[in-house]
């Protein structure tokens, strides 16, 4: 009994030691990013491990101006909000249709959307590029909004349909007897009930579109039209030797995201893992 308890205690200590070691692996890069972003480039090159001597906050101002972060932040916000609204509207309406309306070919159409869950972006990227090119949509926000919305929609439809399937039909039936149309029922009864699933859809769409790299990398070549991700790519290529500047830009992009994560941590974890758990 006694040896068992000792074994258990050492086991628990060992487990905790592993967790703390992994914790360091996660914290050190982030701490290094913040501390180096406040040092001069010369200091970093001389001694990468050192602490900031004078807290050069100018780095942030310089990086903000040189990378034109303000402008690209706004572009990213615009792209993300339009793409997210598209996904929410299209996916909830389509899911409601799949859940409640009986039309010929419903099973097939739904199966078709499910295939969209597993198709890689690359399968339609080339075709879409040529298509956008002939419509003159390349280098516009739409060339990022439409494909990113298309990527998020299948999962959104699946989650929303499962959710609608779990709602009882009785509410709609009584509204129907009172003479309400399908769209009115959807807007007045279903949508208010669907808030939790809509929040989940918004969460993974916003994070997915905000972070999207490959689609704007391919679609937007005009410097002033780039979203945050690809503009930062070009910026860090141009100033590849200036570590302090780059790390300051990174810190300014990461910090608001850390804050949002800190506040909505549970919701965000649920939103991002929704795809893996449900499919």
């Amino acid at each position, binding site marked *: 009994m006694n040896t068992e308890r000792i074994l258990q205690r050492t086991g628990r200590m060992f487990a905790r030691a592993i967790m703390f070691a*992994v914790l360091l692996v996660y914290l050190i890069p982030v701490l290094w990013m913040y501390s180096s972003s406040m040092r001069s480039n010369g200091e970093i090159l001389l001694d990468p491990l050192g602490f900031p001597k004078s807290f050069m906050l100018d780095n942030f101002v310089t990086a903000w101006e040189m990378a034109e972060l303000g402008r690209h932040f706004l572009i990213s916000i615009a792209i993300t909000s339009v793409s997210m609204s598209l996904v929410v509207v299209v996916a909830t309406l389509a899911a409601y249709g799949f859940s409640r309306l009986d039309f010929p070919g419903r099973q097939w159409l739904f199966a078709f959307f499910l295939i969209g869950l597993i198709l890689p972006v690359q*399968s339609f990227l080339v075709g879409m590029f040529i298509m956008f090119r002939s419509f003159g949509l390349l280098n516009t926000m739409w060339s990022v909004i439409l494909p990113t919305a298309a990527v998020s929609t299948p999962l959104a439809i699946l989650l929303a349909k499962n959710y609608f399937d779990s709602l009882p039909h009785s509410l709609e039936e009584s509204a129907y007897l009172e003479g309400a149309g399908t769209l009115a029922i959807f807007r007045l009864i279903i949508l208010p009930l669907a808030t939790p699933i809509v929040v989940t859809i918004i969460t993974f769409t916003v994070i997915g579109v905000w972070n999207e790299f490959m689609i704007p990398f391919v679609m937007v070549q005009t410097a002033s039209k780039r979203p945050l991700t690809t503009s930062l790519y070009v910026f860090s290529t141009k100033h590849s030797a200036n570590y302090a500047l780059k790390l300051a830009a*990174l810190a300014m992009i990461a910090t608001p995201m850390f804050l949002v994560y800190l506040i909505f941590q549970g919701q965000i974890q649920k939103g991002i893992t929704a795809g893996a*758990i449900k499919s």
Partner: protein
Amino acid sequence: MIFPIALSVIFSFSEWRRFSFISFGTLQHYQRIFSDPVLIKAFGNNLIYILVTIVLEGFLGLILAAIAHRLRRSMAFRAIFFAPVILPSIVIGTLWRQMYATSGGLLNAFLDLFGMAPVVWLAPPYTMFSVSMVSGWIFAGYFMTIFFASMTRIPDSIIESARIDGAGELRLFFQIEIPLIKNMIVLVALIIITGGFKGFDLFQILLRRDPLQSGIVLPTYLIRTFFENTNIGYGSALSMLLTALVLGIVGVMSYINKHVVGQVDEY
């Protein structure tokens, strides 16, 4: 979405000169797939990447989840390990590119502390390992969260009764936890393998143009064929190859899930 896919299929059978369409009806792009040394190298690199990330993301995630499942308070650990997933790949990629830097980089500074010579991390023979490390850093916590969530769904009564029967922690792990979340393990394996064929961001961000092609993978090769060499026909054929690969893997894995692994009995 169906229209651009159809276009890609047509393009892959067509001849092009830069962006102008010449004629439909050629198999040359598919013939080239079978005799392209760069493609073989890219495919090999993809396989290395998948193997390393299965260990770094899948195994590590599973072990961390099992540890967290045994700790009374693991909330803070889980929250921090999960955090990288929310950051854009450009932020993580650029940060790690700095850390890998030969001079002024964090990792070589650590090596220097122990009196070791600096390593050129983003060049052969380390290229694929270094890129996989970053992917592991991002996703180990993600898969840990997913495994942890399925482990907490195992009823306490099962675990208690196993403990009363004298099962140690290791036996608990191998004979209770793993069998009860086996379908989730297959799903995560599927995500890692298909993700390994789709991954583009980290390779592009960490390696940039990668002139030696030491870290070329299918997605980066595809984009370079298409945009830098404006070879639309071959680029489309490569994207079809990638699509077929991913769909094939999904098919095989769901077959394995259904017929080999089987469903977990209700508990």
